[in-house]
């Protein structure tokens, strides 16, 4: 910033009261090139070792999660140790845990905002990121708790006008095109009247 050349007389422009004057965001009159370098340097520079040290375990953990979800889908929800009468255990516990984490993030952000803490921005950003990712983590469990490859549709209900307030029949023809099941594969061995 700062003021460029203007046609108005300097007296016509109201002077900013001193107390409202903002500190310049970029000091020392640095050029745009400098700023570009500084910003792009983060991405273009050499990745620090600590980043790799954090990233590699995270990728491994994520891979582990996806392979376990695959194992769950291929094998059955029994791998979670559920039973009757404890039909929800691992799934609901983890769902609630992650939702709780998510709540914590929102709460931190909200409290700082309500108390008008000006320094909150960076912390809020982190807290809200935590909320979003925690909700994503929590969302995994309702999706996979039916241990069914069609479980993802639980959170993406197809528009189905006849289904009032209930989830649609995921395997019906009105819903879904890319089911890993062939639509009728599930109960073939029935009375055979359809044959």
């Amino acid at each position, binding site marked *: 910033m700062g003021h460029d050349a203007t046609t108005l007389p300097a007296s016509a422009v109201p002077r900013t009261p001193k107390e409202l004057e903002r500190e310049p965001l970029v000091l020392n009159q640095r050029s745009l090139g400098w700023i570009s370098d500084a910003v792009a340097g983060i991405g273009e520079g050499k990745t620090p070792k600590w980043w790799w040290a954090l990233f590699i375990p995270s990728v491994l953990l994520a891979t582990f999660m996806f392979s376990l979800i695959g194992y769950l889908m291929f094998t059955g929800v029994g791998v979670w140790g559920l039973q009757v009468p404890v039909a929800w255990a691992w799934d609901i516990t983890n769902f609630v845990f992650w939702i709780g984490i998510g709540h914590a993030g929102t709460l931190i952000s909200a409290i700082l905002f309500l108390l008008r803490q000006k320094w909150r921005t960076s912390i809020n950003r982190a807290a809200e990121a935590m909320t979003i990712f925690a909700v994503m983590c929590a969302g995994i469990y309702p999706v996979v708790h039916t241990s069914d490859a069609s479980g993802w549709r639980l959170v993406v209900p197809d528009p189905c006008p006849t289904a009032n307030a209930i*989830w649609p029949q995921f395997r019906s023809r009105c819903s879904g095109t890319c089911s890993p099941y062939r639509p009728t594969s599930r109960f*073939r061995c029935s009375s*055979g009247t359809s044959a």
Partner: protein
Amino acid sequence: LESERFSKLLCLSSMKTIPPPCPEPETGLKYWRSLDQLAETPEFRQWVEREFPAGASEFTDPVGRRHFVKIMGASFLLGGLGLTGCRRPEEKILPFSKLPEGYVHGVAQYYATARPTRTGAVPLVVKSHEGRPTKVEGNPEHPEHNGSTDLFTQASILNLYDPDRAQRFAKGGNTATREEGLDFLGLVSRKFRANNGAGLAILMEPSASPSRDRVLQDLQKALPQARFYAHDPLDVDTARRAASQTFGQSVAPYYRLDKANVVVTLDADILGSEEDQYRLIRGFSKGRKLETKESSMNRLYAVEGLMTLTGVNADHRLRVATSQVAAVAAALGAEVIKASGNSAAQPLADALAKIALPAGVNPKWVQECAKDLVKAENKGKAVVVAGHRQPLAVHVIAQAINSALGSVGSAVEFKPVPAAPAGSLTELAQSLNAGSVDTLVVLGVNPAYTAPADLEWSTTQRKAKNVVRLGYYEDESFAGSDWHLPAAHYLESWGDARTSDGTYVPVQPLIEPMFGGLTEIEVLARLAGSSVVRPHDIVRETFRTVSGASNLDGAWKKLLHDGFLTGSAASSSSLAVNFTAAAGVVSSLTPSPAPSEQSLEVVFYRDYSLDDGRYNNNGWLQELPDPITKLTWDNAILISRKTATALKVANRDVVEVTLGGRKVTGPILVQPGLADNTVALALGYGREKSGRVGGNGKGNSVGFNAYAIRPSAAPHSASGAKITPLGSTFALAITQEHGSMEGRPIIREANLEDAVKHPTFARNFDLDSPHHSAHIEKEEGTDGRLAKRLYKNAYAEYDDKKGPGGAKPPGPMLHSDVHQWGMSVDLSSCVGCATCVVACQSENNIPIVGKDQVTRNREMHWIRIDRYYSGAMEQSAPEMIDEPQAVTQPMFCLHCENAPCESVCPVNATVHDEEGLNVMAYNRCVGTRYCSNNCPYKVRRFNFFDYNKRPLEQLKGPFYKTPALDSTDGEWDVLRWLKSPEKGYRPEQEWELLKLAKNPNVSVRMRGVMEKCTYCVQRIEEAKISQKVKARASGDVQVPEGTFQTACQQACPADAIVFGNLLDPNSRVSKLKKHERDYSVLGFLDTRPRTTYLAKVRNPNPAMPDYDRIKQPLTLKEYTETSHSDPFADHAEGGHGHQPAGGHGQPASAQGEKKGAH
């Protein structure tokens, strides 16, 4: 028509290019099929004798069997027969070129047949779908049976489709052709006919087949020096031998418990493991119904060492070691004879008087029991039954008592039965050791497994030069056989039997032997060198002599149609006890010393589900919880609490039982009610060579083998055993760990006296009964039984909606006014035998899940039998555990009208239909399991893995095999599944057979789907459709009472389950629902279940010494203590303090009606 039916049977299951020949009628026009047949050429004869056209049975390489099965499957398919419904539509379905008469595709056909048992047969009507039998039901027309069955019969259909059954003829363990096998039999026959049969020994199972008797006589005539032996590890023949000695004729007792007022069992598990138990249960439960006020109730005394179903249902139970039952029997006999004053019986009375009552038995118990028996009003209506584990003398005493009570001819009849012309296994072992046996023919028996340990059968058997065995499995006895012939299942074979009352019943095949199996009579006929070897012809010939019919053809057709020969029951002759002989037998009875901690008594008992081990490879029976211990997939070393404390062992501790130098290792299970210092071992487990269910040794056998320590001298109970803890533990799969109701009124009980005085007692347990809560406003029209609803049922709200002018707005009613289904279960007559569980499993395609899954509470049975012990509540008095009362209750989906499951299902997969059924739409279910969480009865079953599609070995956790990384038959499992989702991950050969057992009218549920009792909706719909067809324009679409039954109801021998239409005021179920004893389990939740229960009534004798303890049923005591309320007291004293105005002194029901009218 028989011949058509027969031809259908033959033709249906072998859809080859040319159908096999059908039998020709004996008279009338003869039709010939070909010139060969007319000329009786040898080629034609050979073609007739061989089961399959050339090529089909000639695979000699090891893969031949599998290929053979494929051909089988293909032949079904080619005919458009089996399983077209199970196939995906892109496979070709060809119509019949000539449709069998009366055949409608998809419509089941029923054939009358029978399952042969040791001493009789179970008359059956078997359902057949497209040529494959799918469900076994009792024959309701049979004079002595009401259409019920036992659980072995229900499960026997799975044996037919057992992929591990013997499928080949084997010579020295290698596959041979059928022709070679039959040639060998001919060779044996010729060889022994040359020397009159010297050196030929034949070992058989006991049987009640007149045809077998006849063929045996022929064989004896042809080979007079051949020797015959019979082996039955349970030795149920003792009753016949004792009766024969007592009465001097070969007769067997035939109990009519429906005519008995008092029943005393001497270690006889008449409601569990005795022969013919389902018929005995039926008779017994008839006397426990109390459906009308006039009906009186029978009384059961049980003297026993094990905790059996009979003991559970007894009004008085005397816990005494099995070896000491004889002494109790003697004391009882002495008392009864003394009271009867028969001077002829004096020698017996003298012999009995010498036997002292065992220590610890209250003499008053025996005296009062005897007094009850000899009461004038019980004349001829009291009966004493001795069990098969007891020695001959106890049976003799029992028959002498029955005779003294005048019950012979009424409550017990004696039917003449031919004496088994056979020696024992021990005698055979002696002959073998003496080297006098050249050829040993073993028919059906598995002696290598079931022979007592000291006979060392595996080595003894090899002392014969040739061993030929006809066996259903390639089991332990397979290895020691030179020739192994596959046996046919009874549903594949022609045969006959006499049921225990002597009625002649046919065993009619429903399917051609799938693996070319032979029947016993065919093998015997071939050995005799008889010209008639086809079982059909043999049986027909026997029938000719049995019936004496002039029109044999017509009589034969009627026999096959009815399933029994009318009027062929044996008449019981009047008999007099030979007291001298009886005294002789009794005086030989040496009282065995009472067992002690140092010298424990081992009792070998018939397992409730595996029999003697023959059902070891039957998954339904392996997974069936034992009615008493609730143990699945294992046997355990049962001991009493006191013995366990003394030996310092606890449940699941692995111990070693040593008996006579032989050892067996197994886990401990403490059994309430078991006699002290008794070790009870179930037979039938620990097989070395059983199959994929029962295991094949090498650590994967189910349970331990109790035969390994069984001595031949004392095969039922032996003393002198020791138990040594080994310091490890073993996981047991027990389906019900918590055995107490904790005082909650789940099962409601009263003694007869109180039940008569307070007929509505069962309702007084309800939390919303006037008894507890007179202040609660009641629903109209419920006799004040139910609290007023807070809000209307959504269906009722819709149906009650009134439009303008009070008329119902257009639109369908949500409630059907034709049918409203309901069920009533009489806990008074239910004995807990678990036949319904297996019947349900068979009808509804319920999978088995394996031991590991049962330990994780994932069993799939739609019916569970809850067994509660009562009396164990008092922590201060642990001895209550020793003498508990136990109650059983079948629990299934109760079809609540306000179903908690329905309101939470996010996808509407479980909903109500207009007829009151709580239905599951499997296709809608996505497996959220919300319904199961919300079900207060916990009757919903979730398919956690693909139980129908996975072999058992894949169902072992906690790290389960995944199809993504596994392959079967050399193909990636996921690919296999995509190709054929029904087959899933099962090996081809296993699947080809197992799928045949499925009921095509019921969906086979896959993984991730909730399931539960449907009230057999497929049967309801079938009945409704046929009624609609019948009704035509008349509009009378209401299914009449008795048109159909649910599977559990049909199988129930006690007739305790009643299902029907509640809108029909004359239906039995609506009458039972109005009965005073009717109550809802957890009714206070306002679930309004459609299945309700009739409270249990016990009938103890006030004169008995233990009456003080059981003056009230112990569950009632627990309830009273927990809830501080007495269901018999005037409700003003109920302890809740809500005293209704004017309520004093009025019976609870009257008060209820008054409140209900508000």
